[in-house]
Each structure stands twice: as C-alpha cells, then as structure tokens.
C-alpha cells in the first residue's frame, strides 16, 4: 500500500514568487526572511522524498464558477496547465505544466464516493495559485505528478467545517489504501485571518491577530476539538471576509489526525495576512 510520508499545510501567498525573485530596489524588505523560512519549510518535503503529491486547494473563480459549482472536486487528467492570465497580471506568476497521477485520482474518486463524499471530477482542469504556490515554495522543480483536490471556501453555501475535517480523514485513509509502492505527500493550503475587497484589507498585519494566534496553536497541536468548538461558518466572517479558507487548514488537520503535533511549525507576520507553515511526518521524521 502507498505510504503517506508527509502531511503539509500552509498559506498560499501569491506575492511570494515576485518577492523572492525581485532584486535591487524592487526587493521588499521582508523578502530575505521570507525566503529563509520557505527554504527551511521546503526541506521538510525534500527530506520526505515523495513520489506523488496530493494537492488540496481552493479555486479562486478561475476554473470553477457559479453556473456549476462543486463543493469538492478531484482532478483526473494526465497533465494540468497552471496559473491564469489574471494571476500573471497581478502576481507575476509563471505559466506552468504539471503532470497528473491518474491512477491515484481514480482511486480517490472511487473510494471517496464509496465513503459517502459526492466528489465531482474534472478531466480538463486548469489549476490556480492555491496549488501552484505550494509547488513554487515546496517543490520549485515541479517534477512530481500531482492529484489536485479543490474545495469551495468561496461561494456560499459552503460545506460545514466538520465536513472539511471528515474529508481530510477520508483522504488520508484512501491514500493509505492505494495499492501502490509509491510515497505520497499530502499538501494543502488555506488562510488564517484574511480580508479581500473589504474595509479591513491590506493592513500591516492580518485583520485578526488573535484569531491567527489561536489558529496556529490549534493546527500545531492538532487540537481539532477546540477548533471545531470555536469555528462555525458564521464565526469565520469575524476574522476577515476571506477567512473561510481556514477550512482547508481544518481539512489538513483531518489528514494529519486529531491530537497529532506538527513536526515543523513556523509563521511570518506579513502585511495583510500571517503566513503559516506546518509539516507532520506520520512515520517519524526522516533521517
């Protein structure tokens, strides 16, 4: 059976690519520290030596739209074109082409449906920065095949937070039941407190540092009970109007398992949001 060699959760700040590649006067003052943290974070995946990446993210009204909106969607394609014109325009993100792992996609779809998750699928999925940003930060070679899984954290009505946790648990079990010798890393990106298009956007910090502090603690310690007790669809409006992306962090807590402490925890207080990085090694830290 396949082995889950790393579980990784992070934010997906689209400005990292431009900040980390900028030089001279264009290079922002926080870039060097940001690169140092990302380099250490990247090493946690490199050490795990994965063969395949399962990538959980949220489409930002690129591929998915309100005429036909899935709640959870699994990509099943041999290749994925990546990044969109408006991401190139705003963030300078490069166009990318990533390989798919169709056998694992098929297994996740079959087993996920059998487990009671009515997963949508796509045979022609162009992916966006929620998946490409962790490729840029964690595996810039972009050489490993992926299975993209998209969640709706964006277009009400949204699934309940507990459903994200349940799906995370199921993904872990399904990947571990995949009849393969390959080593799989499961990587997901979400948000801490975040406001976009509202009065609290683009402040010197995330809009709710107290929420960020609690959220990092919940994730780092795997405290799903407290997290689920405090987080509801309604409450997630308070830390910022884009904070529902936190549910993708909750999904990854489900993947990691209740009570599981992360092996790598780091954060960076940036303008407009707090970056946060977590890695779990289910079978112990690689040597």
């Amino acid at each position, binding site marked *: 059976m396949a082995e889950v060699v790393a579980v990784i959760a992070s934010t997906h700040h689209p400005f990292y690519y431009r900040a980390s590649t900028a030089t001279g006067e264009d290079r922002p003052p926080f870039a060097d520290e940001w690169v140092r943290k990302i380099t250490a974070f990247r090493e946690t995946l490199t050490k795990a030596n994965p063969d395949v990446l399962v990538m959980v993210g949220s489409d*930002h*009204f690129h591929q998915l*739209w*309100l*005429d*036909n909106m899935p709640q959870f969607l699994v990509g099943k394609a041999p290749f994925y074109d990546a990044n*969109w*014109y*408006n991401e190139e*325009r*705003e963030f300078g993100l490069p166009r990318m082409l990533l390989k798919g792992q169709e056998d694992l996609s098929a297994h996740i779809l079959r087993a996920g449906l059998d487990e009671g998750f009515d997963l949508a699928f796509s045979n022609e999925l162009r992916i966006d920065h929620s998946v490409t940003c962790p490729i840029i930060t964690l595996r810039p070679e972009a050489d490993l095949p992926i299975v993209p899984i998209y969640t709706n954290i*964006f*277009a*009400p*009505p949204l699934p309940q937070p507990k459903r994200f946790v349940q799906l995370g648990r199921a993904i872990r079990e399904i990947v571990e039941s995949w009849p393969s010798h390959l080593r799989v890393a499961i990587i997901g990106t979400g948000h801490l407190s975040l*406001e*976009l*298009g*509202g*009065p*609290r*956007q*683009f402040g010197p910090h995330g809009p709710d540092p107290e929420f960020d502090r609690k959220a990092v603690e919940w994730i780092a310690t795997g405290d799903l009970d407290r997290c689920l007790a405090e987080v509801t669809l309604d409450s997630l*409006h*308070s830390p910022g*109007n*884009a904070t529902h992306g936190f549910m993708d962090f909750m999904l990854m807590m489900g993947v990691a398992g209740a009570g599981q402490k992360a092996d790598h925890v780091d954060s960076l207080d940036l*303008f407009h949001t707090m970056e946060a990085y977590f890695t779990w090694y289910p079978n112990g830290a690689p040597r």
Partner: protein
Amino acid sequence: MSKYLVDKFLFTIDRDPELVERYREQPRETVEWWEVERANAVLNCHAGEASTWLCFTDEEREALTSHDHVKLFELGAHPFLTLTLFIAMFERDHGPLEYQKAYGARLAHFDLPYPDIAT
C-alpha cells in the same frame, strides 16, 4: 435578484485582457454591450444554448457603469471579483498598495455582518 449577473459580469470581464481595458475606458458602453450580447450566454455551452431572462436592475447597472465599488459591495457583489478586476484597472495609476488601501478605506463605514454575497 440579479446578484449573480453582477458577479458574472465581473468574472467574465476579469478573464479577458481586452475587456478589462474596454471596461476601464468605456464603462457605460461595455456594460450595455455586455448585457445585450453576453449576459445570457450559458458558460461552457455552445452559442446556441443561451438563456433568455438575465438582466441587471437599474441600481446594479448604474453601479457597474460608474465603477462604484462601494455600491457593488453594498449590493453583495463577490468582493474578490470586484477587487481583482478593479486592481487590474486602477492600480497602475497609483503607488505600491496605495490603491488597495484607499479601496478599503472607502468601505470603512461597513460593519459586520457585511452584505450577503450568496447568489
């Protein structure tokens, strides 16, 4: 009632570089053209499968033609769509983050809960 159509306008303009420029330079003409020619296109269907019933309210049409992002927020347009499109149109006229901060400041009179964005 037609909140979805406002979002659809923002979504379809934002994905097309030529339409971004056209909406920046000629907002009234672009909104009128789009409502007549594009509003009822069922996305991902071929051109013969249009719907027949989508149109803006007068208030929505005016908010779009006047580039009034505050009014669009009040009407429940999806804030991510409005922000990304307006950044594409107007950030170029300002210094780093200047436009985004001013954009937020113009919304300062809104308290939680913000207008409902469900379509």
